[in-house]
Structure formats: structure tokens, C-alpha cells
């Protein structure tokens, strides 16, 4: 009979051990998943990008924390792409070293614009997005802070979502004789915040707004219009934010967040309060429950406490 008792016990213990292992592994894995904030080491090792694209399609990709230093001509349209993930607030800072003022004939206005992965213009919450440099100025500084990236948004809205973002630097207003002169451009992108404070909570975008950059294929107008648009796994894509690792428990356990600690603390407090409440009513150590009047108290042999059983 001993064995019969012990076998299920052992099985239970083994199962518990496995559960414990996975439970231990879970927070470690979620902690190891790539965090949204740019790591300073990456920027140090990669060095600045020295290229810039001239269209959305050819935009040069900037890794998180990586800078760009590019020799440009006044009047060029320069494009860079970077990836942003939910909860981030990205700031693009641009510094343009202007051509020698002796070569210039008038003021010029530079502007930096941000577009999301669908090439929709994104507003800046802080600037200056445009700046006019007088003829005597040696450089001009621009910056644009994006709205915080949301974790989910209505398809009909223009809210910033995780995915690729494009930076376009251009000269809006310039005397024609000043076009083509050499300028030096520095771009610096910083990101702050992370997935923890992404809004709306619990929302997620199934696929980030990362546009394909491969050539598509056209079906004949008469062809059946069904079934040919399966998402193409071989498609090449623009800069994409690092995806959090997905595990078998990802659907059940969304990772540690502060809600867990609040809820666990609340549970503990409730348990304590419950015990306290019970004690208040049920265990009046110094008092007697309602019953015989105190006058009947016997001075000799102390009565055993009825509640100590």
C-alpha cells in the first residue's frame, strides 16, 4: 500500500518540478527579449552611417542609436529609415553644416519630416521641424519628436504604430543659385520609453507597419481575384523593429508587468485583512463570548479556554 501512495505523489512532484522550471524560465526569457531602448554598445560598435537614400524605397537604414553623417548637396532629398516599437517616443535631431556663406546668395529653409511605414506624414510634438538659416549662418539645427508609438490603433486612424519610420530631410525654400552646393548633414535618433507604457494596454499589432520593398507581381485583369495575395514570406522588407521572442506560453502569459505586482500585493493585503477581520470577531482573547453573566465566575480552578481546542 505504501507504493500506491507514493507513485502519484512522485508523479505530482515531477510535474511540479517541471512547472517550476518553466515558471523560472519564463521571466528570464522575457527579460532576455530585445528591449526597445537603443543600446549604447550597438551604436558604438556600428559607427555612423555615411549614406542616405534619395527615395522612400532606397532609404538608408539606421540601427537604434546609430547616427548618420552624410555629405550632401543643397536641394537633395535625403531619406533614412529606422524601426520603432510600441511605447517608444523617438526624437530625430538633424544638424546641417551649411555651404560657405560666401557662395550663398540668400536665406535657406531646411525641414525634417517624418513618415510612417505607410508613408503617411506624422506630426512632430516638438521641434523645430523647419528652420531658416540666414546667409551668414554656418549651420542649422532641426529636430522632430514623434508621438508615442501606440501598441494598436484603428485601421482608419493615422496614429503612429510599431514599424518602419522614414526621415526626410529637404530644403524647402532656397534661392536657385544656391542649389547644389555642398552641405554636411548629421542625423541622430534617440528613443525613450518602452513597451510597458504603450497604449492601449493589451493591444497589439499582428504585423508591424513594415512595407515590402520587393517588386510585386501583377495578375492579368481577367484573372480570378481570389487567393493570390497570400502574404509573401520571401518578400524583402524595410527596417523592422526587433520582434519580442515568442514562446509556447506567449498566448497565456504576456510577460511580467507592473499589474502582476499590484495584483499580487492586493491579494496578499486581502488575505491579511481577511485574517485580521476574522481575528477581530472570532478571537477576542481577553473577552468571553456572550453567555453566562460574569457574576457566576468561579474564583477557584480556572476554566479551560473553550476556544483552545
Amino acid at each position, binding site marked *: 500500500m505504501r507504493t500506491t501512495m507514493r507513485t502519484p505523489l512522485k508523479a505530482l512532484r515531477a510535474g511540479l518540478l517541471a512547472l517550476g522550471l518553466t515558471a523560472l524560465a519564463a521571466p528570464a526569457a522575457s527579460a532576455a527579449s530585445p528591449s526597445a531602448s537603443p543600446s549604447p554598445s550597438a551604436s558604438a560598435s556600428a559607427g555612423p552611417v555615411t549614406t542616405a537614400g534619395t527615395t522612400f*524605397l532606397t532609404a538608408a537604414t539606421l540601427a537604434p542609436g546609430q547616427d548618420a553623417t552624410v555629405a550632401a548637396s543643397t536641394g537633395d532629398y535625403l531619406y533614412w529609415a529606422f524601426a520603432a516599437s510600441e511605447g517608444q517616443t523617438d526624437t530625430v535631431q538633424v544638424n546641417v553644416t551649411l555651404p560657405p556663406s560666401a557662395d550663398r546668395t540668400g536665406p535657406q529653409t531646411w525641414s525634417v519630416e517624418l513618415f510612417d511605414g505607410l508613408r503617411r506624414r506624422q506630426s512632430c510634438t516638438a521641434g523645430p521641424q523647419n528652420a531658416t538659416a540666414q546667409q551668414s549662418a554656418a549651420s542649422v539645427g532641426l529636430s522632430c519628436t514623434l508621438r508615442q508609438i501606440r501598441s494598436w490603433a*484603428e485601421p482608419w486612424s493615422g496614429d503612429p504604430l510599431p514599424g518602419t519610420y522614414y526621415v526626410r530631410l529637404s530644403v524647402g525654400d532656397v534661392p536657385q543659385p544656391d542649389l*547644389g552646393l555642398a552641405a554636411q548633414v548629421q542625423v541622430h535618433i534617440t528613443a525613450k520609453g518602452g513597451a510597458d507604457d504603450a497604449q492601449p494596454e493589451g493591444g497589439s499589432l499582428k504585423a508591424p507597419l513594415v512595407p515590402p520593398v520587393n517588386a510585386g507581381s501583377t495578375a492579368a485583369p481577367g484573372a480570378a481575384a481570389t487567393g493570390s495575395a497570400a502574404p509573401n514570406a520571401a518578400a524583402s522588407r524595410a527596417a523592422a523593429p526587433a520582434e519580442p*521572442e515568442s514562446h509556447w506560453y506567449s498566448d497565456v502569459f504576456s510577460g511580467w508587468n507592473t499589474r502582476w505586482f499590484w495584483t499580487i500585493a492586493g491579494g496578499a493585503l486581502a488575505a491579511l485583512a481577511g485574517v485580521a477581520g476574522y481575528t477581530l470577531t472570532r478571537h477576542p482573547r481577553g473577552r468571553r463570548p*456572550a453567555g453566562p453573566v460574569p457574576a457566576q465566575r468561579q474564583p477557584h480552578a480556572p476554566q479551560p479556554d473553550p476556544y483552545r481546542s
Partner: protein
Amino acid sequence: MTTTSSRRPARPAGLLAALAITAGAVLSGLPAHADEPSGGAPAATREAPKVDLVLDVSGSMRAEDIQGKSRISVAQKSLSDVIDALPPEADFGIRTLGATYPGNDKTEGCKDTKQLFPVGKTDKVEAKTAVATLRPTGWTPIGLALRGAAQDLGDGPTTRRVVLITDGEDSCAPPDPCDVARELAARGIPLVVDTLGLAHDDKTRQQLLCIANATGGTYTDVRTQEQLTQKVKQLVGRAADTHNVTPAKASGTDKCETAPVLTPGVYTDREKFSEHRVYRVPVKAGQELRASVSVTPDRAVARDYGVLLQATDTAGQELVRGSDAGSGRTDVASTGVRWSAPDAPDASDSPSAPSGKSSAAASAAGRPSADGTVCLIVSNSFAAQPGVQADPGLPLELTVDVAAASPAPDGPAMGLGRGWILLLTLTLAGLLTGLVFGWVARWRIAVWREN
């Protein structure tokens, strides 16, 4: 004893369960690394980047006005540096204009463009010698030289780049080099002309700006030799980096029924002023359509402009629209839309319904057509300046993607809470429960004592 034997398998089963759980945890971590994006995987047959350098060797290149040196010597020195630093994979060629005919006959002088080096793997020593022996001679047939360069570069799927170094306006128009550039760009083979001007007069600048603008290239006003060297190196590098990124050609129609059906990817087309172009994209239930469009004003346009991208169902009902507008100098006007197809309808047989009769029924039900086709209508509100030709249309770039739709979030995760109110509520609830249980227990004891 019978009970013992029947329960014995419980032990291996428990161990097995433990193993399965841990193995699952380990294995599930692995595929995450396997499907990392490979960063633009190279196609099996990849064309080398092709760059043709068009060098002006007309008589005016003798002028000594770049840091005291003659224009031709500056160009020769820079080119020699550039040839030394050519990326190994690049196909590089050189074409000259005005290098051979020294006479005064315009018809003869304006045919004077010849291929100095074919586009291909360049012998660096030979190329440098050939460039060094050039002497400024003749006329400036830029338009003809551009046509020649386009021929040198040949046909193919990837972007070709022409780097034009010149010091003067075309002295041979017609053909107007700007029209030639636009015509070459509209031919269907992706071609970008980057221009570098060695002279600083207005007419040259305007012409070179026009050529660059017509093909999506850049214009540089060369003031120093270092600038020229650096810029040409940058352009050759850019050709090597981005030549492979070329959209497919599509031609939209004016009606949805006849529009081409697009799969995810990038397309290019031409759209005239005030023209509407329509494309179709199949979107199944539970999928999300993502489309963006860019229209490039490659000629002189009015100050204010706009672009509109509408998605409609096959019955013409608008689903979503994206638009952008602006004013002033720009290279492109872009906008995009997202649209989620509604979830699969309750009747499971409707996807298999013949698509012919479905559109009326579907629009009556308030849904887009059951075959899930969305029409994308692209229109622009660019306006031509007086005297600007309308044909060929403005270059248009359309990106289509179909991804999994993202349903609306169902509130904070898993019923977990946050905040002081939560703590207070839980504590009070605990306290009340404790009190109630305490009172019940006390009442029960009182009852027990009474009995």
C-alpha cells in the same frame, strides 16, 4: 494489490509529462532565432550595379576656374581617384561628349559623343590612361550623350545610373536634354541621372536641375576637386547599394473591373495630371490591406499640390482614404491607408460563392464584395505650370501589402489590475470576508454553547 498494479503507470506518466513540458519550453525558444529577417536576401540571379559616367570634353572645359586649375584637369584627377576606388562588383563605363570634332559645323559637332569605355568590369589602368589623354575639343550634345548612355547601360530589371559631369548648357538642342531625360525615365527601364555642374551660370544650373529632377537624380554644384571626387564616389556607392531596389511595372486603368490585380510588393506607374488610376487587391477575411502611394512631380508644377488614395469595394463604396497635401519644393507627395477586412461572415459557404453575383448581394449586406477585392484609386492634384508637357505622366509608386488584421484589444491583460484603488478594494473585501466568517463562526459557537 490490484490497486497497486493499476496505479503503477502513474510514475512514468508523471515523468513523461515533466519532460514534455520542459522540452516544449526549450524547443519553443529555438524557432524564434531561425526566422530572423535575412536583410534583403539576394536573388539567385543578381545583376551587377551599372554606372555610366558621361564626361563633357567640350572646348569650354579648358577654363581655369576651379581653385586655379582647368575644369578638365580637375575632372580627370577626380575620375582617376574614383576609378581607383570603384567597388569590385560594379559595372562601370565612360562616355564622352564633344571629345573629337573640333570644327565649327553644328550638325557635325552635335553628333560628337562616343563610348570611351563600355559598361562592364573596368580595367582600372586602361581607364585611367584613357581619361588622362582626353583634351577639351568640341560641342556639348548632352541630350544625345544621355541617349547614348542609356544604350550603353542596356536593358535589365535593376536601376541604372548615369553620372553626368558637364560645364555648360546643351549647345545642340533639340533634342532638349531635359525632355530626353524624361523620355528615358518613362521608357520603363529604371534610370537615374545624377548631374554635376562645373560652371555656375543660371542656364547650366537650370538645365542640370531639370535633368536630375526628371529622373529622380541629384544635382551638385562643384566648387572644389575634393567635392567632385567625394560626390562621384558617393554616387557610385549609391548605385551599388540601391540598384536592386526596383519596383515592378503596373498600369492601372480607369475602372475597377478592368484594373490589374496586385500582389504584395512595390509597383510603378505613370499618372497624368488629374488622372485617376485604379488597381485591385484581393483581401480575404481577417486580413488587413496596407497600401501607400507616392507621386513624384518630375517637371515644373504649381506651388500647391496633393495626392489622394482611396480604397473602395467593387461596388464603388468607399472604405477608407488617405490624403496628403503641401506646397513648395518637394520630390514626392505620399500617403497611405490601412483597411481591415471584416471577419469571416457567419455563413461559411459565402467564400465559395461565385464571384459574379456576389457584389450586389455583398454591398446590400453592408460588406465589401464577398470575393474580398478592394479597389485602390490613386489621384493627384498636381497642376502643370504653363508650357509644361503633360505626357508621359508623373511617376507613381504604389506599395501594396496584405498582413494579418489586428483585432481591437480586449482591455487590460488577463484581468490583472493596477493602482491604489485596487489594493484598497481587495483589502476591504478581504476584511469584510474575514469579519463575516468570524461572525458566522462566533454565532455557531454561541449556538453550540447554548445547546
